[in-house]
């Protein structure tokens, strides 16, 4: 009897990590299958698949940034506003006639500095929770974006500036048709996600980010400079929002006041659906990617079927609650109390 229990227990121990890591991918594959059955002609067509990736391109940057913050048991509500401010700065600089290589750098630098501002505020001003600091900067950055642009859209960028968001990689040399191109934004997502996967899983700093989320006191007692790591995390989150702004500039060819409105909530939702825990220290880059994809496919699929966007909101909300309930169950099984 005891032997049998032990066997079951060790099977649990072996399976739980895999479920934690890849369970969300299972859900993603299931969704793709369902959508394919419902829309067999359209859903998996080249055009629609690249469309999904183009639609999620900038959200995936925001979600990755917010994910790192959530791993430290923090939150960043300002990513949408950082993206909007970076986009507006890009637009103003582009309209002023700056060369393209300066224009493409501006949102990255602006995003990084906004994130640095968040990080310094949280650590130096000793805010009781990052929620408060980033709630403040959610208003500050969007207001600043409207101040510098006068609250009106600024349109028309050069092709170099639009390349990351709008560029196409021709695949005709592979014998494919002209319409079967690869969006540059898809390649960018892959590169950025791989870099951050290596950073979070294989570097000391990445390990310390997880340790801070697991137990900040343990990190401090181990000689880790917790505040420094937090500042790095929020700065990188801002930087990724800046990349998001550059992609959005390419996609829409315009800086507009409502850019990224409420997209911080989409980013948080993607992290939560992807298995990141609000308690910190838990979640994977692959999971965030799956979370972003699930939200993108849901929106795309429901659009294809002409389902009202109100239903999309209801469904995404339901998936968040379900995903977190699974997280709760997982904690019950996986940890001793």
């Amino acid at each position, binding site marked *: 009897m005891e032997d049998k229990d032990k066997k079951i227990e060790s099977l649990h121990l072996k399976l739980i990590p895999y479920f934690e890591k890849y369970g969300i991918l299972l859900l993603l594959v299931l969704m793709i299958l369902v959508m394919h059955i419902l829309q067999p002609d359209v859903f998996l067509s080249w055009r629609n698949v690249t469309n999904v990736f183009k639609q999620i391109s900038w959200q995936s940057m925001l979600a990755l940034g917010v994910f790192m913050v959530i791993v430290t048991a923090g939150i960043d509500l300002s990513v949408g506003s950082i993206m909007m401010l970076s986009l507006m700065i890009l637009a103003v600089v582009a309209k002023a006639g700056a060369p393209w290589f300066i224009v493409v750098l501006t949102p990255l630098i602006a995003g990084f500095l906004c994130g640095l501002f968040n990080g310094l505020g949280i650590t130096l001003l000793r805010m009781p929770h990052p929620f408060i600091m980033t709630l403040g900067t959610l208003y500050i950055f969007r207001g600043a974006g409207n101040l510098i642009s006068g609250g009106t859209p600024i349109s028309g960028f050069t092709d170099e500036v639009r390349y990351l968001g709008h560029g196409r990689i021709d695949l005709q040399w592979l014998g494919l048709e002209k319409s079967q191109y690869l969006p540059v934004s898809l390649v960018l997502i892959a590169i950025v996600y791989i870099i951050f996967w290596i950073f979070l899983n294989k*570097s000391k700093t990445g390990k310390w980010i*997880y340790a801070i989320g697991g137990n900040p006191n343990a990190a401090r007692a181990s000689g880790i400079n917790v505040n420094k790591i937090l500042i790095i995390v929020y700065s990188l989150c801002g930087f990724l929002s800046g990349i998001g702004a550059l992609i959005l500039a390419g996609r829409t060819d315009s800086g507009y006041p409502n850019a990224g409105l409420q997209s911080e909530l989409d980013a948080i939702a993607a992290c939560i659906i992807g298995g990141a825990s609000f308690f910190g220290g838990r979640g994977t880059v692959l999971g965030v990617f799956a979370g972003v994809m699930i939200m993108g496919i849901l929106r795309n699929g429901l659009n294809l079927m002409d389902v009202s966007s109100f239903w999309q909101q209801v469904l995404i909300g339901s998936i968040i609650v379900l995903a977190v309930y699974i997280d709760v169950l997982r904690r019950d099984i996986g*940890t001793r109390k």
Partner: protein
Amino acid sequence: MSSTSNPLLEAKGITKYFGTITALENVNLKVHAGECLGVVGDNGAGKSTLMKVLSGLYKPSAGSLFFQGKEKILESPRDSQNLGLEMVYQDLALAGNLPIGENIFLGREPTKNLGFIKLLDFNKIKELTNAHLDKLKINVKSADQKVEELSGGQRQAVAIARSTAFNAKVVIMDEPTAALAIKEVGKVLDLINSLKKTGVGVIVISHRMDDIFTVCDRVMALFQGTNFAEASLSNTSRDEVIGWIMGKK
């Protein structure tokens, strides 16, 4: 264990004020290689403050620390760690979401170079962890097991393993058995005994007379921030030590 040899760690005349409050006044402490010193005292007697001075978390207002006969000034916990002075905190200070090995090496992870970037060397972490756990006779299923999956006693063992992974010469333990089930207490006390055998000096802060009388060679009592009494274990009794805690000789 002989008291004639030079002590590993010696604190002389440690005084610590917090504003107008005197937390410690002219406190002396020493511990030798392979010896276990028990520190007892009532709440507020100054035990924790003294340990924080020894670990470099607080700077003493007066007094000096000698490590292997040389005077040392500790600016931060990093300084004390570099000397081989390690602390096991009462709340254990482990990250539950990380595996045992990564907890033991947290903040001091071995890396390997891949071109110009430094990546964590997971194989080495696992190798060193297994060797170290074996040396301390700590049994866990695997070094990859997450700390949150461990029992209280196993966690305490991991915390002790971490404190000794980098050639510690003195290990300071704050209430090492306070949160443990009875059968786990014995394992932790065994671990302290095996540390002593490897020549480590151990300082144990404890409320539990059983712990003190099982592992310690000497016991000292603090009372209202001062040295109150001290004796080798063979020259005292439980009742006497309990009396010291309450300020009676």
